């Protein structure tokens, strides 16, 4: 830590709020985009923010118990933590976050923190759909973590470090230095895994509204739901930032961050708009199939040749 605790906390707060708002707006923009694709007007792009205010403005709420109460807290803490361990903008003091605390593996494992807590909270609500949704989500998670991990290993081999900042540093200077071009196999594997992480179609098996409305958060509402939605935006940005840093040369300033995250998220949206939903076992098989093979190839290519 090169500067005082208070300062770094303030910085963290700034970058958190920027990320959250951008994440929410991104969600809204995407809704708008999809709507235009349908030939609709669609909701205003700040709709997610209104929803969050609305949910926090609810007058009543119920609690099924301590763990249920803490579930959303775990979730958003996971989101915030994951975000804070990622250097958001390369070389920026404010958006550097707490990346000194740990490296890539820390981020990868901290992603689970929120999911685990949320799963526990949803579990205590006692609603069978919650449990089913969690079971599906965890199963899918194991599946897409495999290609993702392989891809990560591949780029760690490539750059010989686990330190995200130095991975970004290695990609500076020209678009052709990006992992996207220097290690395309790993990038492809990771991007497919990202679709699973974002849980849009065809991988929206967790909150499949037609099957298990709406999965884990069935019992969540009011300000609990508000927290969850806030986290949706934040966590989304965290993932995008991670991918941006690892595969798309990171961001040297706010603007390029906006562009890149938008671009990466666009992939998810296009895929989501164009495919129907998998069944759970199909999705698992899918991730263990082609993406895994690509990941293994990536590791072999970078590691052994």
């Amino acid at each position, binding site marked *: 830590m090169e500067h005082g605790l208070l300062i770094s906390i303030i910085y963290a707060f700034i970058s958190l709020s920027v990320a959250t708002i951008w994440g929410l707006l991104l969600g809204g923009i995407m809704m708008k985009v999809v709507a235009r694709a349908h030939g609709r*007007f669609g909701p205003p792009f700040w*709709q997610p923010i*209104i929803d969050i205010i*609305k949910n926090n*403005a609810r007058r*009543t709420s119920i609690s099924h118990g301590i763990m249920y109460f803490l579930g959303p807290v775990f979730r958003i803490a996971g989101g915030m933590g994951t975000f804070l361990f990622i250097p958001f903008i390369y070389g920026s003091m404010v958006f550097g976050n707490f990346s000194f605390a740990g490296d890539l593996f820390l981020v990868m494992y901290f992603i689970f923190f929120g999911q685990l807590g949320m799963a526990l909270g949803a579990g205590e609500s006692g609603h069978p759909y919650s449990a089913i949704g969690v079971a599906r989500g965890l199963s899918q998670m194991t599946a897409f973590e495999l290609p993702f991990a392989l891809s990560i290993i591949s780029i760690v081999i490539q750059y010989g470090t686990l330190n995200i900042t130095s991975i970004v540093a290695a990609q500076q200077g020209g678009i052709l230095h990006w992992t996207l071009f220097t290690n395309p196999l790993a990038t492809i594997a990771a991007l497919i895994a990202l679709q699973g992480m974002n849980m849009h179609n065809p991988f929206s098996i967790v909150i499949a509204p037609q099957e298990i409305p709406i999965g884990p958060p*069935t019992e*969540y509402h009011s300000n609990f739901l508000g927290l969850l939605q806030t986290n949706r935006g934040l966590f989304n940005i965290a993932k995008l930032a991670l991918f941006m840093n690892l595969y798309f040369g990171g961001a040297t300033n706010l603007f390029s961050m906006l562009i890149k995250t938008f671009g990466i998220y666009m992939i998810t949206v296009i895929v989501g708009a164009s495919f129907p939903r998998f069944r759970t076992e199909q999705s698992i098989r899918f991730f263990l199939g082609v993406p895994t093979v690509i990941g293994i190839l990536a590791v072999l290519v970078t590691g052994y040749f």
Partner: protein
Amino acid sequence: MENKDKMKLANDGLPEHEKPLFCDARPQTYKPLGKYVEKFLNWARANSLWILGYGTGCGAIELRPLMTARFDMFRWGLAPRPTPRQAGVFVIGGYMSVKTLKRVIRSYEQMQGPKFVIALGSCTINGGMYWDSYNTINRLDHYLPVDIYITGCMPRPEALIAGFNKLKAMIKAQQTDGQNEYARNFDWYKANQKKIVKDWNMPDYNW
């Protein structure tokens, strides 16, 4: 202590061994917050109305077109929601048989306040063509606090949209307060409900 007992509900419908499985608290009335805060919050509430997607009658068929590209309800911040916990607007789609009414009551009570009810079609107003049926209720407002009635048999989607916009205006103007009304006249509503729902095997208020 005595006061506390008054706050508790009897839950007579439940067998003794199931009483601990349900919450027996009474619904409360809520004061609005400070003027401007409440105004702001009402604006938010009005601009994100989440519909409980529960087709209770033939009118439900008129709800679907709203989601289509032609009517596009999303632009007013309306969105269907699969679970009552998260929904704010309950759209009663036409006639109510007694059996359905029971579920509707349960779902309505499970919604978190502030919550609004829009009733579609003449059936909900006075029974409509089922006015003399042995199994269809006549007036919904004896069982739930209805904010907006939309007439017609069936009302067209445009009528629904008009209704929703009316509701939004009312919310912004803070003219509708179904939740508090339900809580205030809880006993009356409950009596009416129990009068026709003969096998009341749920708690008196489904939290």
